[in-house]
């Protein structure tokens, strides 16, 4: 199969965006509008050097904006099928890059609690066009690869076999960090903890990325995961009391949060006591306990109400204090979701250079961790062996998060 080096399209890359829906603040809107209209970047307004020329929209809710955008931007057209969006209505692939953005919309919720967003389906139809055209172009897949492990694995395998760059994941690994630090490349990590918010199958993925984008930088690189355990509700508090994770990591995460909720109606700025914690966490807490092949242990906690942001802490060998940081996403929905800016910057780089800024194996791993966590919960808070996640990958030492 041809690789992207044979892409001879003159001038600016032309991009097709396949979105589940296009409404205000949906991922599709956030990403496509930034690529089309620009965004604040460093000390200026940045207009990406590419054009989104075609759109496939799976669902049109009442507040749809895609038709308004089609009218607004003369070069952008909505097509009724994915194949037509990729061929611009012709018979062969006619774009230089593809965005798969399938995060929102009305899709079936299965009994495990997963929303069956059609990422794999979009991807498969994309690949069909690539095959038919004898040509492939870079693909960006927003967030996790699929809710189904077999499909996620197939997506990555297909991109390797056909030789096109596949970039995936959410904004978490690339957003502002406070403080603006990375895990020292090659550091030895003994234990990690991430505290996040939201529900399983949605925000667990973001928190897991918060672990993985640092863990993969450890000595020896990523060596794979051998087991995932999931806990829920009181069992999470029991695990805390049993010392299942380093209390200094828990404190570090809460002290990097900018949204730590005090116990008494905000009239104080207190650190929560053990007794206060269950009252502050509004939904039953969730924990995923991850056992890596090289012995690293990591814990993901979802503690809605106690905090409203995502923080991570790592115990490094030979260091007295944990390394800890906040993944800064802004002040909730009161602000612009500008954490999409660095993600769009990497998308632009992918489309202009054909190089992946970070390996898709990170997203494959976090996709697998999320699926395993959801499944472990569904099976009654089990520990599940994960032989399929026992794969390794390496990252370069260059940091890719937003610092400037």
């Amino acid at each position, binding site marked *: 199969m041809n690789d992207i080096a044979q892409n001879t399209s003159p001038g600016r890359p032309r991009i097709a965006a396949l979105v589940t829906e296009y409404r*205000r*603040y949906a991922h599709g*809107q*956030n990403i496509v*509008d*930034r690529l089309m*209209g*620009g*965004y*604040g*970047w*460093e*000390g*200026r*307004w*940045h207009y990406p050097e590419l054009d989104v020329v075609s759109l496939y929209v799976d669902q049109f809710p009442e507040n749809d*904006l895609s038709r*308004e955008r089609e009218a607004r931007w003369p070069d952008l057209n909505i097509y009724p099928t994915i194949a037509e969006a990729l061929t611009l209505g012709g018979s062969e692939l006619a774009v230089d890059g593809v965005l798969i953005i399938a995060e929102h919309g009305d899709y079936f919720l299965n009994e495990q609690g997963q929303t069956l967003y059609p990422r794999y389906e979009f991807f498969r139809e994309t690949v069909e066009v690539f095959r038919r055209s004898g040509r492939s172009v870079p693909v960006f897949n927003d967030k996790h690869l699929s809710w189904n492990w077999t499909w996620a694995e197939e997506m990555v395998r297909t991109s390797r076999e056909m030789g096109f760059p596949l970039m995936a994941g959410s904004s978490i690994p690339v957003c*502002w960090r*406070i*403080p*603006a*630090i990375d895990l020292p490349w090659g550091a030895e990590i003994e234990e990690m903890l991430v505290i996040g918010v939201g529900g399983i199958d949605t925000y667990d993925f973001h928190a897991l990325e918060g672990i993985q984008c640092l863990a993969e930088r450890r000595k020896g690189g990523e060596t794979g995961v051998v087991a995932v355990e999931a806990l829920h509700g009181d069992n999470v508090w029991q695990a805390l009391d049993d010392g299942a994770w380093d209390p200094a990591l828990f*404190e*570090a995460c*809460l*002290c*990097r*949060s*900018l*949204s*730590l*909720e*005090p116990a008494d109606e*905000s*009239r*104080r*700025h*207190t*650190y929560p006591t053990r007794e206060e914690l269950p009252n502050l966490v509004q939904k039953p807490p969730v924990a995923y306990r991850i056992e890596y092949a090289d012995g690293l242990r990591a814990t993901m906690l979802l503690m809605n109400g106690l905090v409203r942001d995502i923080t991570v*802490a790592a115990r490094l060998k030979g260091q007295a*204090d*944990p*390394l*800890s940081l906040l993944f*800064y996403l*802004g*002040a909730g929905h*009161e*602000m*612009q979701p*500008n954490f999409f800016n660095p993600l769009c910057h990497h998308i632009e780089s992918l489309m202009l250079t054909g190089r992946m800024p970070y390996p898709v194996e990170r997203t494959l791993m976090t996709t697998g961790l999320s699926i395993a966590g959801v499944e472990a919960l569904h099976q009654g808070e089990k520990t599940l062996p994960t032989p399929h996640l026992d794969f390794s990958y390496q990252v370069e030492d260059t940091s890719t998060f*937003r*610092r*400037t």
Partner: protein
Amino acid sequence: MTEPTRKKLAIITTVWDWRSHANHMSERFFSGYPSQGRWHRPEMDMVSAYVDQCPEGDLSRQRAEEHGMAIYPTIAEALRMGGDALAVDGILLIAEHGDYPVNEKGQKLYPRYEFFSQIAQVFQEDERSVPVFNDKHLSYSFEKAQRMVAMAQALQFPMLAGSSLPVTFRLPSLELPLESEMEAALMVGVGGSDAMDFHALEAMQCMVERRRGGEVGVKAVQLMDGSAVWQAGEAGRWSRGLLEGALARSDSRSGIALSDGRPQDLVHSGELEELVENPAAYFIEYNDGFQATLLMLNGAVQDYTFAARLKGVSEVQSTQFLLPSKPNVTYSACLMAAAEHLFTTGQAPYPVERTLLTSGMLERCLESRLNGHQRLTTPELNVCYKAPEASPFCGSFV
């Protein structure tokens, strides 16, 4: 129980309710605060208080009961803890809220100078001084502010003052190198006068004081508002390039960005002029010829951003001064970390002259507004100082 080795603090304040500076700041000493990944508990206790006004919602009495703090009817008694000699090791002077008159310049006459004078009198009478932290500006009056700094020098006590903006988180974590060859600077702020404009001016000052030659004072100021602000921009009095640099750091949403989600290049789209309710421009001309401008752009943004152009550097240097929201309003912990440093070491982490000059700039700008927006020469604002080598702000260290 207060251990004998722990330092004792007094808080002198106007009002103490749950949204007040007094509450946010005293909490950092009562309850501790997040710092570098730990819950830090200062090795000092707030043991006495003077509270000028106690309207409904007062928390000072409750805190006194909870923490064994004593409230005294006068400042002198609070400092002497009811005895006959100065009995505390540090003082927080917080006079930002409360019911006080407003003068013709639109300044609320908070009694900072009056409180400070009483503190200094106790120091003088008792022949001993301790460090004083003064929240926000020194006084609504530059002359009174000067007298405050002179009293601190005469009685040789360390003094720290100012807003939380210079010490809060920055996105990105920008610190301009000392002795930067700065060509121009622009700050964008929001909120009312004379409350929020001070914060914005001091944030601007903590950046521009790092220019070549250090701070040499201000020779003239002018405050414009309304359409004259846009006209001044067109005439090149302030730079739209720098405004683009500052707003590129904003995460606010308004106008189109709010109604349908499209991020807006406000500087070039024409939307800015529609969104801003009543723009104001504070022009500051320094003695070395450097010029800096604060634009207050209510309606368009809700955050504080800064941009500067350095000689020989093509990219605009810019950042957002991040003000984390409720519940923890962590920026006040950043400020109290600086106050704690003052009380622990007896050294102010940054010069009080920054706040003195900013207090004067604001007062003279408001005078310009009162005098038909005239440019005012300000020979009295010849405040000279050197910026600190390391100017600690939250997130600048791990």
